[in-house]
């Protein structure tokens, strides 16, 4: 169940990220949000709002300090989602 969630989350994240960034880089699990996608603070706020709205969760701010890659963000969301 969690695995399935993770894949869905990953898919949604990749879709959102590719529209948020004009970057040509193909987005994979290992893509670094900071150095490869240049997610600035405004884009990040939009992304978090969309994630929270789509999954009906709340992402604690302290958790983002350990997120650098798309995979880490997807795992975080999946963990919060399954703890619900």
């Amino acid at each position, binding site marked *: 169940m969690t695995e399935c969630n993770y894949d869905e989350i990953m898919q949604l994240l990749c879709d959102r990220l590719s529209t948020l960034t*004009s970057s040509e880089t193909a987005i994979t699990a290992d893509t*670094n*949000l*900071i*150095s490869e996608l*240049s*997610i*600035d*603070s*405004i884009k*990040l*706020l939009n992304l*978090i*709002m969309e994630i*929270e709205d789509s999954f009906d969760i*709340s992402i*604690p*701010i*302290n*958790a*983002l*300090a*350990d*997120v*650098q890659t798309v*995979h*880490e963000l997807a*795992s*975080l969301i999946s*963990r*919060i989602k399954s*703890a*619900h």
Partner: protein
Amino acid sequence: MSSTITKLNAPLTQAFDFQPSSELQIIPTPTRNTLAQQLAGFDTLTNALEYAAQGITGYNFYDAKGNLRSVLSYNLLRQNARALAQRLSGFNLIRGSRVAIIADTSPEFVELFFACRYAGLVPFAMPVPVNLGSHGIYVQQLKGMLDSSEASLAFANIDYINFLEEASAKISNLKWTGTPAQLRELPAKDVALEPNSPNEVAYLQFTSGSTRMPRGVVITEHALMCNLQGIVRNGLEIKPDDRSASWLPFYHDMGLVGLVLAPMVTQISVDYLATRDFAIRPLQWLKLISRNRCTVAFSQPFGLKLCTMRVRESDLKELDLSCWRAAGIGAEMIRPDTLRNFADKFSSAGFKSNAFLPCYGLAESTLAVTFSKIGSGFHSIQIDTKTLIDKRMAVRLQTAGRKYNEFVNCGQPLPGHTVKVVDENGLQIEERMVGSVLVQGASIMTGYYNNPKETQKALKPDNWLDTGDIGFLYEGDLYITGRRTDVIIVNGRNIRAQDIEELAEQQPEVRSREASAFGVNDTAGTTTIVLVIECRLTSATERNSLIKRLQQLVYMAFGVNCIVELVSPHTLPRTSSGKLSRFAARQGYIQRTNLNDQLSVVESGDR
């Protein structure tokens, strides 16, 4: 990866389990008090709280969805703070010892802050981590503050205790690190709580994210009381039916002094939203103002921009902002367009543009220096650009069609304070001439804690504080035209150029004094950070790796993107004493990149 998840485990549980059983019954503290209002004029913070505790007003904390989560009346705050102070006394610290508290927007922070004052200790607020991937750098920043403040105790609630424990390792002065809940478990020491004196230090305020050289502003009870009195009597003209709403972080001077302490010394109620929740859904702040009929709410210009940008037209009909009489704006340079756009958007929701209240201040002067006239909205002046640049003189635009700069009137100093503008030699210059802004008065800090070098730079003879800002006086009113090149403001955050250069110099490829950071603006006023490095690397791969690494580090530390330019050694201009000149470095960069059209440079920096 799994260790990351394990570490996250503890913080996350709190986010879900926290559900007060009495949720249905809690109601916010009222606006109207049963107690006669006293507008500051107390001699210490604890005396002010003793008075406020006799009424029924206080602090209210709301969650991201706008639901009331906890209520802390001034009465309950007094009770809890005194009880915690008895426990703090058990550590047998000498009066004036520093206590570090990670300041999220919570009742626990406020209780601890006042507990410290009741116990004769000096609290200071540390930030919460806000940037993606910032774990390592955040811990370094905490370490820097714990070290330079020589803190004896350090607190964080359950969400942040892991970071704090990591930072506390090898901090020699630190006796104890824990959560407020752990403090409550300790035995209370049965001692009488000694009254504080006005000359004692009330708190420290850190102003920089520097890991090596954090600066803790020392503010005495007397300075604090003076500044608060000026703010509430002259700046805001607080009345018994006032109520505040705030999303400003408690670890910023405007959030702490302006929206935690100022309401308390006037016994008015406040409704809080966490900064993160505001940033993601700015509408919630406006909803709070509308629903609770709040009258006083402050923001940085960037916060207003977020509201203008991110609140949908369809949300406007839910709002009635006609109650908002003091929309204070400060903490960074105010652009008239930011205010006009906000007023245009929210006028249909009842926002009155005469509520705009531009003000100017800084932590080194407790909080406020000048206020514009309450109730009269914002006023600006159009200044001829050519005269401004050629003669450093502010002359009103005479003929239409000439290029001009528009500056917002920040008003006049609070009573007991004087503002003057000086030239490069420190000599006072006439009205309308542009120079460094200096302030003198009772609200000025005594210095940076344990940092005589920085203190000496900021405090000039006769206790004139050099604000680091550039501006001019016009008919007695202060206009700020910019910052000196040592501070860069991006998205409402003050970032010291030195802190960025320091990050760069920690890289093995970068030698000390070979990095220079500054900001460049595009025509819309957006600032981008540029970091120029003198670099000996020849391989393209190594050069690219350095650029990427530096961009990532700057992002993790400050949450902003930056342009990194590698130049050959001896490119950066130096002063006669061998110091780098950021101003000259910026000029050089502008020439190299042909920055007549600054916009294109900013765009290329987004890569």
